[in-house]
């Protein structure tokens, strides 16, 4: 059945799609747009390691004990660290690791938490009971012993090849999986509580009355309406994940030296902070910029999803 055939339409103003309206609102938010630019610059910065390494002809892993704590020079633009390695290149390579871990672990953990929480709240009943007791169980586990057990898992016993288990990629994925596994619970609880209150609203009933299924209602009504608390929770997670990665690295699994990450560079620099404060300042500043930018980005998303917020 065609709609226009039903009625002679009088069109003066064109209706615009929901997502286009949201994008317009997002662009109004200056902080979010600035953060988007800042994050793109950060991305360009960490990717610059690929052309820069052959250009300057430096091996970022090679130690040179005669060149410890060198000041900035034409060869080492930000000087060298306590093992004589180039700081700039290590910041770039460490940034690739930290940003990828931060974004991936947050995205996987967040998506899992949102799906679990929304399904629990939406379907209710037995499923809700089961999922929430499971979540409570995860919350009850103490973090550090859990991390150590997960970190000590022998990957070859899980069916991965020994070659993969020893490679750097295994360490990287191990960290992403571990962090995602422990960091979804808060998101799930927030998602469930917000879903419960939205589900009872009449606009959801109106959609049901027209025959809407659960996936449609969740995607169209529930998620946009619970976006505000979720975005806050998830943007706060990213900064925490970047630092949690350094804790894991400190415990000896995941990103293992000499591979740098912002987290382990910051950790190493702590002992040398009186000798070479710049070594702590650079990674600290980059983590700071990332966290701030992600939070402003979250602000912008909230603004885009909530038409009542005015800024």
């Amino acid at each position, binding site marked *: 059945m065609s709609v226009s055939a039903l009625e002679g339409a009088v069109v003066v103003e064109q209706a615009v799609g929901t997502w286009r309206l949201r994008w317009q609102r997002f662009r109004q938010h200056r902080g979010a747009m600035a953060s988007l630019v800042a994050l793109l610059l950060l991305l360009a910065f960490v990717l610059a390691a690929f052309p820069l390494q052959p250009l300057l002809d430096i091996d970022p892993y090679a130690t040179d004990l005669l060149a410890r704590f060198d000041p900035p020079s034409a060869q080492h633009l930000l000087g060298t660290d306590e093992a004589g390695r180039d700081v700039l290149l290590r910041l770039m390579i460490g940034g690739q690791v930290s940003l990828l871990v931060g974004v991936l672990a947050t995205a996987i953990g967040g998506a899992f938490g949102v799906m679990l929480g929304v399904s629990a709240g939406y379907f209710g009943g037995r499923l809700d009971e089961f999922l929430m007791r499971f979540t409570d169980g995860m919350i009850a586990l103490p973090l550090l012993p859990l991390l150590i057990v997960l970190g000590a898992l022998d990957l070859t016993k899980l069916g991965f090849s020994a070659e993969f288990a020893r490679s750097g990629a295994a360490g990287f994925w191990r960290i992403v999986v571990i962090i995602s596994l422990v960091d979804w619970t808060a998101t799930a609880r927030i998602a469930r509580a917000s879903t419960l209150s939205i589900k009872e609203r009449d606009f959801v009933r109106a959609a049901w009355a*027209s025959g809407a299924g659960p996936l449609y209602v969740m995607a*169209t009504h529930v998620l946009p309406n619970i976006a505000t608390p979720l975005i806050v929770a998830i943007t706060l997670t990213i900064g925490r994940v970047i630092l949690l990665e350094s804790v894991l690295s400190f415990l000896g699994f995941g990103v293992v030296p000499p591979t740098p990450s912002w987290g382990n560079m910051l950790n190493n620099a702590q002992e040398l902070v009186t000798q070479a404060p710049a070594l702590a300042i650079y990674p600290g500043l980059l983590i700071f910029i990332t966290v701030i930018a992600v939070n402003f980005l979250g602000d912008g998303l909230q603004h885009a999803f909530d038409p009542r917020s005015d800024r």
Partner: protein
Amino acid sequence: MTALVELDRVSVHFDQRRGLLGRRSVLHAVEQVSLTIAEGETVGLVGESGSGKSTLGHVIAGLRKPTQGEMRFRGHSLDRATRRVAQHAIQIVFQDPFGALDPRMPVSAIIAEPLTINRIGSQAERRERAASLVHDVGLPQDALNRYPHEFSGGQRQRIAIARALAPNPALIVADEPLSALDVSIQSQVLNLMRDVQQQRQLAYLFISHDMAVVNHLVDRVAVLYLGRLVEIAPRAELFARPSHPYTRALLDAVPRIGHFRARHRTIQGEMPSPLAPPPGCVFHPRCGKAQDICRVTAPELLPAPGRPAQLAACHFKD
């Protein structure tokens, strides 16, 4: 006239359990209600709060399945195929215009939603349809790309009506659509509802507790008390000569200018709990005419003497 919707002895019960080990009890929200709505007809459903009006409305709108009994749509029982057609042809307008519209959706998407859900027409056609409906319900054209919070209660109710009209329904269940609005706005929305009905051959199930509004709009009135249909009659007959004592009490409760309220005729007390309905006629604890038979035998819904169209469930109907 053919029957659009038929309810055949429909009951809705809710299982209630207090606490983990509490006793299980059954709430009889709607009990053995039979009702037909013809094409293009307006049926008013009246009763106090808690009488089961909204629950019955939700059954007809497809939001709740009856515990017992059957609903038929254009003579077909609701199997999968018929249910899809009925979902399309029966729309609902809610009481609270603030909760009925998704605050994070622009108006054009809200109005087109019933079409989007059933994948009718292309996106461009749906937007065109929303634009023409905005015009039909008397909203400004620039409403399309705005959000619900920018509108007043009356305008929001117009948006809700536009959404209900989008799939060209045969019946709109209006669940107290006016009671959240200012009196001055009520008449505007009421007139809009009447106008669109005349243009589109719509039937309404108009749920209300405002007898004056009901008198203004409906063809037939059904009176619900404690989930039971106690009287159903054409509007003029019911307002002129109510047959059931409860209907009479409802009419007497309407304040009128120039009349002192007949205090002795208003009913006393409150409606009994639907968890433990009284035996016999459910109205007997509050009824002035109650006799022994009322406490034992539940009356059936039968025509009043000499008035075949007026049915009442009372042993001593007028």
